[in-house]
C-alpha cells in the first residue's frame, strides 16, 4: 500500500471539512455567529478608517478639530510628497524595515533549526525567546536604551576587551537607526523562529532521512531540502515581519524620540509627530492613509502567500 503523505492526508481533511460546511442548514447559521465580530469591526475599525480618510482629505488643525472640516481634496497628500521630512522619513523607514527583515529572518531561521529538537537546551532557548517576545515594548526599549548608554553594559564590556572608545549607539546619527532596528529585530526573532520551527517540523522525516542516506551533510540537507520546502512559510513570515517593522513606533519613541535630530524618524513616528505634537491632523492623517495603503498591499501579499502555502499542502 502506498503510504499516505502528510500533505495528501491534510487535503483529504480539508475536503471533508468543506463537505461538512456545505450540508443543508449549515450555511444559514454562520452569518449570525459572525454578527458581533462584524459589528465590532464596523464600529472600531471601518468607521474610524472612513473618518481618517475624510480627515486626510480635509484641512484639520487644532482650531477646527471639534468643528467642521473643510474638504481640500488631495492637498495634504501633495504637501506630504513635496515635504522633505516625509521623503526622508520614507527612506529611513525603508532602511529600517530592510534591516529588521534581514536580521529577523536570518537569525530567526538559524534559531528555528536550533530549537527544532526536543532537547533541554532547545526548550530552554524557546522559553527565553518567548519571554523576550512577551515583554512590553516599553520595557524592551528602556532596557536596551540603558544597555546602549554611555557607561552602559555594552560599552563597559567593549572597553573591558580593549575597545577604548565604544560607539555611541544612540547618539551617533549614522548608528542610531541600526541600533533601534537591531532592538526591533531582537523582539521579532522569537516570533520568526517559532513560526519557522513549525514549518520545519512539518517536513516529512523520510525526505530528510533519504537525503542523509544519500550522503548529504546537515548543511546540505538544510540548504537543498529544508529551505525549499520551507519557502512558503518563509514568505508568509517575512511579509508579517515587514508589516510589523513598517508600523513600528514604540521603540523609536522610547529609545530616540526620532533623533538624534531626525535620524530615526520613521513614517509612523512622523505621523505621530504631525498629529499629536504639531496638531496638523490633516497632514498626519494623509501619512496614516498612505501607510495603510502600503500595509494593505503587503497584507494582500501575505494572504496570497498564505493561500499558496495551503494549496501547496
Amino acid at each position, binding site marked *: 500500500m502506498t503510504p499516505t503523505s502528510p500533505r495528501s492526508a491534510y487535503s483529504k481533511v480539508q475536503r471533508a471539512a468543506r463537505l461538512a460546511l456545505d450540508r443543508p442548514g449549515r450555511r444559514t447559521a454562520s452569518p449570525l455567529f459572525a454578527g458581533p465580530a462584524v459589528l465590532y469591526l464596523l464600529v*472600531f475599525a471601518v468607521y474610524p478608517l472612513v473618518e481618517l480618510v475624510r480627515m486626510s482629505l480635509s484641512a484639520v488643525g*487644532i482650531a477646527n478639530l*471639534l468643528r467642521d472640516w473643510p474638504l481640500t481634496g488631495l492637498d495634504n497628500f501633495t504637501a506630504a510628497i513635496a515635504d522633505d521630512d516625509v521623503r526622508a522619513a520614507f527612506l529611513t523607514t525603508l532602511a529600517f524595515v530592510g534591516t529588521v527583515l534581514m536580521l529577523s529572518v536570518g537569525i530567526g531561521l538559524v534559531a528555528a533549526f536550533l530549537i527544532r529538537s526536543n532537547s533541554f537546551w532547545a526548550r530552554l532557548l524557546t522559553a527565553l525567546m518567548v519571554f523576550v517576545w512577551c515583554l512590553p515594548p516599553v520595557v524592551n526599549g528602556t532596557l536596551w536604551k540603558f544597555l546602549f548608554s554611555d557607561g552602559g553594559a555594552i560599552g563597559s564590556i567593549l572597553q573591558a576587551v580593549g575597545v577604548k572608545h565604544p560607539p555611541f549607539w*544612540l547618539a551617533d546619527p549614522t548608528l542610531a537607526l541600526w541600533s533601534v532596528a537591531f532592538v526591533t529585530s531582537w523582539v521579532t526573532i522569537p516570533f520568526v523562529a517559532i513560526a519557522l520551527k513549525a514549518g520545519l517540523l512539518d517536513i516529512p522525516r523520510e525526505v530528510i532521512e533519504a537525503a542523509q542516506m544519500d550522503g548529504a551533510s546537515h548543511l546540505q540537507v538544510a540548504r537543498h531540502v529544508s529551505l525549499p520546502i520551507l519557502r512558503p512559510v518563509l514568505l508568509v513570515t517575512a511579509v508579517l515581519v515587514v508589516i510589523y517593522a513598517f508600523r513600528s513606533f514604540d521603540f523609536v519613541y522610547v529609545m530616540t*524620540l*526620532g*533623533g538624534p*535630530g*531626525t535620524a530615526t524618524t520613521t513614517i509612523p513616528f512622523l505621523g505621530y509627530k504631525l498629529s499629536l505634537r504639531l496638531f496638523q491632523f490633516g497632514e498626519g492623517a494623509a501619512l496614516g492613509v498612505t501607510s495603510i495603503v502600503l500595509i494593505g498591499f503587503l497584507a494582500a501579499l501575505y494572504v496570497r502567500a498564505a493561500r499558496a502555502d495551503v494549496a501547496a499542502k
Partner: protein
Amino acid sequence: MRTVAAAALGVALIVGACSSPAGSSSGGSTPAPAPTTAATTAPTAEPTQTGLDPNIKADLTVWHYLTTDAHNTLIADETALFNQSFPNVTVKNEFVPFDQLTPKLLASAASKQGPDVAVFQWGDVQSLAAAGVLQDMNSYWGSFADASTFAPSVVHSVNGKVYTAQAYANLIGLWYNSDILAKDGITPPTTTAEFEAALAKVTAAGDGGLAIDGKPGVDGWWTGMPFFFGEGLDVHMADQAKVTSVYAQVKSWVDKGYIPKEAVTWDQDTVFNKFLTGKFAFAVGGNWYAQTATKATFKYGVVPLPAGSAGSKVYLGGEGEAIGAYTANPDLAWAYLQATWFSKAGQLLALKDVGNLPTRSDAASDPAISSSPVLSGFATAVQTGVALPITPAENQAQTLMGDLWSAVLSGQKTPEQAAAELAQKLPTILK
C-alpha cells in the same frame, strides 16, 4: 465627527502610552524645593470671592502632568489648602503624561467632557482656547481683587479674554559645581567667551564640561534657544550668518569634548542627574531642581546662562492653570484656583515644595527666595525672561528648531545646513 475625533485621539493616546519624556518643556517634573528659610507654619487659606456656600458638596477634577514626589507633595498641599475653605469638596487630582495632556483635553472636549481645572503648559493656551477646550475666565479675573499682584506677562489672553495665568515661573540657568571650579581656578562665567574658556580649562583638567539637553523637539528648543537670544536673535532667526555662527560654536564644543556626544539622548532630568554625579563642572537646568540639588555631595551655585552681546535671556516657562470648558461648576473651579494656585499661600507652597518662583509680587518678595543663592539667581533672570510662543505656527517652529539643535549637536547636519533649513522653512511657518 466629534465622537470619532474623540475615538481617534483616544486610540492614539493608548498607542502613545509609552514612557513620557521626562520633564516638560516649561520645566516641570523633578523633585522639590526647600529654600533655606521655609515657612514653619501651615498656610492659611485666604477667603475666596465667589460667594459660594463653603459647605457645598461636590467633586472637582484637576488634570495635570506633574509627577515627581515634590509635585505630588505640592498637589496634596494645595488640595489641603483648598479644603480649609471648602471642606466638603473632593478634589480628584488626575495625572496625565505630559505629551498626552493636550490630546486628552481635545478628545474629552469632543464628547463635551473634561476636567474642572487643567494645569498645563501655558504655551498651548491659544490652541486649546481655539479648540474650545478651555473656558475664558475673563469675568472672574476682572473681579479678582489680587489680579494686580500678577505681572501682565504671566496672565494670558486669547482674543482679549483671559484664559489662564501662571501660578509660578520656571526657567533655566547655568548650574555649576563650585568644587570643580575652585580646583580649576575658574569663576562662574557670565559671557559666552568666558564660558568657552572655562569649558576648555575644566576639560583640560580632566573634568566633565557641560551637561545639556540635546534631544530633538521641544527639549532641544527649550534649552537651545537662549544661545540664540544671547546673540540678539529672536524666534524669527532672520540673520542666517549669526544662526550659523551659534550652531558652529555649540558644535565645536561637542567636537572639543566640552559637551558629551551622548547629550543628544539626554532629557532635562538626565542632565541634572549627570550633574549630581559631581563629574560635570556645568549643567543647564531649571529652578525646579532646587530641592534635587540638596542631594549633591559637592558645593554648587547658579548663574544666568552666559550669553553674547545681547545679554542672557531665557524662556519663562511654568504651568498655567485654567478652567475646563465643560466643567459642571465653573464658580467652584474658580474658587479652587483662587484659593490655591492664584493665592499667596498657594504660591508659597509651590516655592516651598518644589522651588517654583511665585508670580504674585507679594509672594515673590518672600525671604525664602532672597536667602537662597540658588533661587535668587533664578529670580534675577526672570527680569529678562522671554515669553513662550503660543500660536500653533510657533509650536511648529519650536519642533523644527529643537530637531535642528539635536541634528547639529549630533553631526547629522552641519551648522550651515541647519541654518539654511531654518532660513528656508521658518518664514513659511511663521508667516
